């Protein structure tokens, strides 16, 4: 199929992009790496979009340490995150995630901001940011604001980004000494979206656990975290299975995904700490 775009404009800077979106009369779509949007357009699942291309805005690209947090520009590509020494040191979960995201061609084009804004419930980065307790930075006609990751993901492909806003960056707390990160997932084939996946973070203050591809949005598994902190692995597995609401589709049923999430948690704990259920 051939895409049917409503128009295209390349933004010079964030202010220009916000201005272009405001003029798009509700049809504005931000084009960054294009790895989900262009595919959707090429299947005519999305037509008439007024594309606002932010891909040349250099200020939105790159990784820096900003005081007590790691700041990743929205246009930072998956491949760059996977190779970035600051990410490897301060948020190794993201580097692990990159190994699971699609294929090299997609990782070379796709951006972390695009992944978060698209909010595919099976995507890795949203679950990572949730597990790490990150913050999403937005800019719109009313100025800049931040949203905690826990409040950002609302439903399938739906986030707290308001009409006319652009996701500009994420910030993450710097990993403390001895902090451990693990991303584990099962996919039908290398590079496919996971049937289910988990992000497990072990901090001095306790565990953080998020699950992806097990519901309409990434889930922070609060009940399971509590059981993990109590040292109750079997309880954590049961709690995780209870607090997710996985979909069934042509790849796997909800029951399989629920079962799998528990298996993955057992394995993740074993890999991270040597503990067994």
């Amino acid at each position, binding site marked *: 199929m051939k895409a049917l775009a409503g128009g295209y404009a390349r933004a010079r800077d964030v202010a220009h992009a916000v201005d272009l979106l405001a003029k798009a009369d509700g049809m504005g779509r931000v084009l960054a790496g294009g790895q989900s949007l262009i595919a959707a357009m090429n299947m005519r699942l999305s037509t008439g979009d007024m594309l606002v291309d932010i891909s040349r805005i250099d200020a939105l690209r790159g990784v820096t340490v900003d005081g007590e947090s790691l700041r990743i520009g929205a246009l930072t590509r998956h491949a760059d995150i996977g190779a970035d020494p600051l990410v490897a040191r301060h948020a190794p979960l993201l580097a692990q995630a990159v190994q699971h995201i699609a294929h090299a061609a997609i990782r070379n084009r796709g951006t972390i901001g695009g992944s978060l804004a698209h909010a595919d419930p099976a995507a890795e980065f949203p679950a990572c940011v949730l597990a790490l307790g990150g913050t999403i930075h937005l800019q719109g006609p009313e100025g800049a604001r931040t949203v905690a990751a826990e409040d950002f993901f609302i439903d399938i492909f739906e986030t707290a980004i308001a009409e006319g806003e652009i996701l500009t960056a994420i910030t993450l707390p710097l990993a403390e000494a001895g902090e451990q990160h693990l991303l584990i997932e099962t996919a039908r*084939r290398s590079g496919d979206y996971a049937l289910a996946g988990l992000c497990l973070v072990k901090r001095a203050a306790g565990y953080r656990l998020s699950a992806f591809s097990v519901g309409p949005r990434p889930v922070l598994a609060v009940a399971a975290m509590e059981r993990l902190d109590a040292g109750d692995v079997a309880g954590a597995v049961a709690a995780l299975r209870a607090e997710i609401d996985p979909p069934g589709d042509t790849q796997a049923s909800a029951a*399989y995904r629920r079962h799998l999430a528990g298996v993955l948690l057992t394995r993740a704990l074993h890999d991270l700490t040597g503990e067994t259920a």
Partner: protein
Amino acid sequence: MTISFGNPDRPNSYIGKTVPRPNAPRLVQGRGKYVDDIVLPRMAHVVFVRSPHAHAQIGAIDTAEASGVKGVLRIFTGAEIAAVCTPWVAVLAHLKGLKSPPQHAVAVDRTCWVGEPVAAVVATSRAAAEEAAALVEVDYTPLPAVTDMMTALDADTPVLHPEMGDNLAFRRLHEEGDVEAAFARAHKVVEAHFKTARHTGVTLEPRSILVDWNPAEGQMTAWHATQAPHMMQTVFAKHLDLPEGRVRVICDDVGGSYGIKVHVYPDEVATAAIAKIMARPVKFVADRLESFTTDIHARDHEIGARLAVDADGKILAFDIDDWTAIGAYSVYPRTSAIEGNQVVNLCGGPYDFANYRAQTSVVFQNKTPTCQYRAVGHPIAVAVTEGLVDMAAAAIGMDPVEIRRRNLYADDAYPVTSPAKMRFEGLSHHASLNKLLELMNYDALRAEQAALREKGIHRGIGIASFIELTNPSPFMYGIGGARISAQDGCTVRMDPDGSIVALSGVTEQGQGTEAMLAQIVAEGVGVPPARVRVITGDTQVTPYGGGTWASRGAGIGGEAALQSALALKASILEVAGAMLQSPADALDIRDGQVVDSATGEARMPLEELGRIVYFRGDTLPKGLPRELVQTRHFITSDYPFAFTNGVQASYLEVDTGTGEVKLLKHWCVEDCGRIINPQLVDEQIRGGIVQGLGGALYEEIHYDADGQLLNGSMADYLVPMAAEMPDMIVGHVETPTMESALGAKGAGEAGTAGAPAAVMNAINDALRPMGAQVTAMPFTPERILRAMGQIED
């Protein structure tokens, strides 16, 4: 003239060697010419409005808004196409009882599957045509859809085509010996219900056609991504009311076929009809979603099967009840009854046993039509046969290798006729099995498996023997009345510079046909392969032939090439003899030179002979034949098919927590007779194995109960990818067919035939200690965990 294939040091010994593919540099440099690369003056694009319903009455079609889209040239309904294009009925006389209603290029009055064309929009660009197609309003009245195979014949299931009487398209029962008595006296009977999923071929290049009609010449030219240009020539001529000689089908580069591109597709015939009506070139290239909804599907079978063995593991009887659903129409002109018929022909194929009963029931349903796809019926028959054999081995506590040794036809048993009435000229089951066991180091692998099992690692070893039908005679289609050529031809000529041009009726789909033909012609004439230029895929230029199907290119097309090359060599040597005052039989051609055959001494380059023949013919004796063009055709006649054989093995690990299967290694030893190009054969085997592994682990077209396709994209229909593929070890045994001088049989489908069965047996070998077994493909993680009782709903 014969070739001493046993002597690897013979002159011009290109047959049996890996030589470079002449078309490879062109393709890797992006200089190929696919249909979509061709742009003609005044060319228009057609896009089809496709049914969103599995079954619906078509009412009014409102094209007013669509016609207003900029660039739209014309919009056609089914009735308008039917005015110039007759419908077809896909039956074959030798498949007794096969029925199917007339099918139109564009649906008239009623649509029978999601994706069937119901209108055609022609515009100056594909984008404009798509935009307009979305605006065509069709008034559908949905009708009840038949979607479930096993209830299609039930009394309360609606009859899809009322004029056909019922939903049964075809049924065949074959019985040999006394099956009931054999089961009654059996030591053990094993029984299972198998399922093979609905697949499609997923060619890299989608179906593509560009048709031009020149009214001044009364000539139609179709550039078509097809496997059978001559067959399509007949089809276009017949249904568009043109003389066959006024239809030219050109088939340049084709990006993969796998059987998908050997059928008649409604949208492609409609494209030709539209070109004729509009008297201008019209292009149709399917997009990926169209490919999933309209390329033929295949392999959608359910099989109840049982096997009886005696206490020594000897097979007493097979009893097979095969069901398949083929969509709403039998596919033209090969029909959709062949796959089920093949299951009946091929079950139990490698084994020497006496009592056989097999029935196939082929039913209509409201889904995409199914038809022949790589290894037609083989993966199903091999999975059922080999699955049962492994179950029987387990039931009597025998090693899977041992039970095969006791039942495979002995290597000196040939010629022999199987209980399914298949005639085998010469096979090598035991030699192939022995070679396989050696390659895989079977005993060591079993020891490793046992040691790892102690550690909770569950690995499995699966073996699958198989036969493969190749080199078909007219018994496959021709005797049923289809104008599908089983013979093939080749014309070989020498040009003045001594270069050789070979024109062949078999076609290049990317599998290396042209390389194979080049080296045969090179050896036959006596020139380096680089001096042979091969031309295929043009009905106006090449000898009449069947094209690519049923693994026939090397065995049939190759023999025609060899015979025409040898004939040209004889013609050249006759001229050379006159020029050199030497008896022709004292001369030979080696490396492009006429030489003394006894000493190898160079006597004259072919360029010199060419110069004399073409420019100074006056110096040759009057009346000396100087026909440096020779054509030969070849058809098999001693056997209906040249069967090949082989055996595959899979070694894999099952993750009993997640249900995932990791393929560790795969082996195949096969016997395709004379090997012409070892690398091409090995890559055919490997590619075929990959396609078989896809069926075993990944590929499955899903429909809902209303007949809606659920996974029409590459993200949702999983094809096998490199990262999951195991190392493959390929070995060969060579038992040439005596039907031809070349001795080649087919190799294109062996990998696909045996791989799913080997994987199934390996998974079940791994699961057996846990009391679990899987028989429904693909073996997804979920199906494996469910078999293990791990999933709570």
